[in-house]
């Protein structure tokens, strides 16, 4: 479990991270979502002690990161897949990690296999890796010490669709076995599909957080009747707001209520369903647009 409490980071007068608090719970994938420059990476660097916070604190499993005697055995971290020495081979990068953590070198082969880097690829220097291969290497490095917590900054960056699918499965399974995952992304659809809990950040502030169901809850129904005008009248008589949408109507009421009104009026429906989920993307754009307006007004 990761607890972030009131973390603020300022650079001179610029506030990069502003009073951020959230929790990543055991057995869950927490998606840390925000546009570029929102403060995600800074927050994650603060979590692992690479950046000192101006205020606030982070505890991981009850400890400050820097107080862990051998952090790699508990917490797998991938902050930037391109932060590897170009001149080292992929295998060497993992070997250095295994030697630091005191792991048997057989772990290196296991991890290479897990992330599908072939022995030939592992012998190549990182300079010759694609971003996708670097991400796989970075994920292998994060998993080396068999950690119970993962902190991953933009792990899907550079992965091809098959790679993203693979990573999603890997992290879901990891959380299902009781692992804690905190991952950041600006790829909305990716987070929507992988995370249980969402923490949305914009301009250094948390603008929304909650379970995916809470944040994505939708209301209303979409309905299409043969007698379009008659349905509109009937709904208005019942005090239900309805607006034309495509060939049908978008209403505030639930599908059951609409069905009852239509039945009572003897109307023929050809389509009736819950309104489309606004989706995380709309939520995300809406929230970040809000913070931008706030910034402009203030």
């Amino acid at each position: 479990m990761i607890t972030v409490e009131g973390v603020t980071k300022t650079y001179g007068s610029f506030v990069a991270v502003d009073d951020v608090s959230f929790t990543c719970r055991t057995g869950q994938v927490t998606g840390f979502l925000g546009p570029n420059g929102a403060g995600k990476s800074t927050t994650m660097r603060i979590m692992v002690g690479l950046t000192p916070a101006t205020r606030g604190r982070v505890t991981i499993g009850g400890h400050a990161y820097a107080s862990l005697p051998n952090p790699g055995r508990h917490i797998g971290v991938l902050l930037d897949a391109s932060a590897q020495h170009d001149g080292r081979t992929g295998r060497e990068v993992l070997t250095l990690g295994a030697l630091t953590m005191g792991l048997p070198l057989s772990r290196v082969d296991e991890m290479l296999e897990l992330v599908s880097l072939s022995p030939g690829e592992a012998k190549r220097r990182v300079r010759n890796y694609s971003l996708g291969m670097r991400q796989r290497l970075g994920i292998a490095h994060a998993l080396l010490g068999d950690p119970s917590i993962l902190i991953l900054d933009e792990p899907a960056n550079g992965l091809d669709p098959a790679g993203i699918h693979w990573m999603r499965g890997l992290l879901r399974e990891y959380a299902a076995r009781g692992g804690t995952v905190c991952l950041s992304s600006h790829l909305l659809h990716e987070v929507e599909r992988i995370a249980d809990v969402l923490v949305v950040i914009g301009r250094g502030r948390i603008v929304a957080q909650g379970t995916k169901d809470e944040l994505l809850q939708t209301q209303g129904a979409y309905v299409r009747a043969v007698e379009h005008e008659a349905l509109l009248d009937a709904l208005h008589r019942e005090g239900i707001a309805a607006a034309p949408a495509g060939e049908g109507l978008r209403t505030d009421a639930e599908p059951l209520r609409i069905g009852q009104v239509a039945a009572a009026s003897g109307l023929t429906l050809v389509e009736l369903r819950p309104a489309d989920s606004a989706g995380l993307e709309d939520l995300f754009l809406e929230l970040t647009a809000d913070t931008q307006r706030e910034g402009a007004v203030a």
Partner: protein
Amino acid sequence: MSTGRSATTTDLAGLDIADDPRIPLSALTRVELRKLADTRAGKWLLIAIGLITAAIITIFFLAANQSDRTFINFMQATATPQGFLLPVLGILLVTSEWSQRTALVTFTLMPVRGRVLLAKVLAALIAGVAAIVLAMAIAALATLLGGAHDAWAHIGLDDIGKFTILQFSGLLQGLAFGLLFLNSAAAIVTYFVLPIAFTIVSSLWSALEKVQPWIDLGTSQQPLINADSMSGQEWAQLGTSTLLWVVLPFVVGLVRVLRAEVK
């Protein structure tokens, strides 16, 4: 760590680190030694140190008179080329972590940064000892093959000791400049240019002439290379100039790295 241990026993979501041994310094040092040789650039720097040591002894062997072919003279011939290359090794051991951004990984795996830096110092000194041992081995071989009559005379522990002080000083100064600049080019250029600039300035400015042996490392290290024994004043001058050129930049660089934001 002590506060963490008591917290874990009650917190179910906590991490139990009570049985975790701290990463031993030996493991960190082993990793840093490995980093010296696991890239092409690093490997070639080590090979270059070896080859140049062998080459300079060979050249000296061919060029010197029979009577000058003593073990000590062979050793002293290696002082300058090794003194050029070992500091570069020290600089790169620090700066490559920043230019290649591997500090991000290194300090995540070992958040107590001072321990990583201590491991780097130990790794650099081990490499320095290896270079000196290599120089001694080749010098001994050259002496055996065609040394003077008294080629093995006048070899004292103090000679080897002074030689070691000289090379360790260069390595530590390299590390210090690496820490100070966190940039290979800036550290290397400054390491080589600054002493030259300093010598020029002090030769032009007569007021500096008197204090020069006390503050110029190049001057104060001369007695380390000569075979004669050193006077108390010479040791004191070595001490003050080392303080200025090695210890001071090291401390400033250390503070910088301990406090830096690693991106």
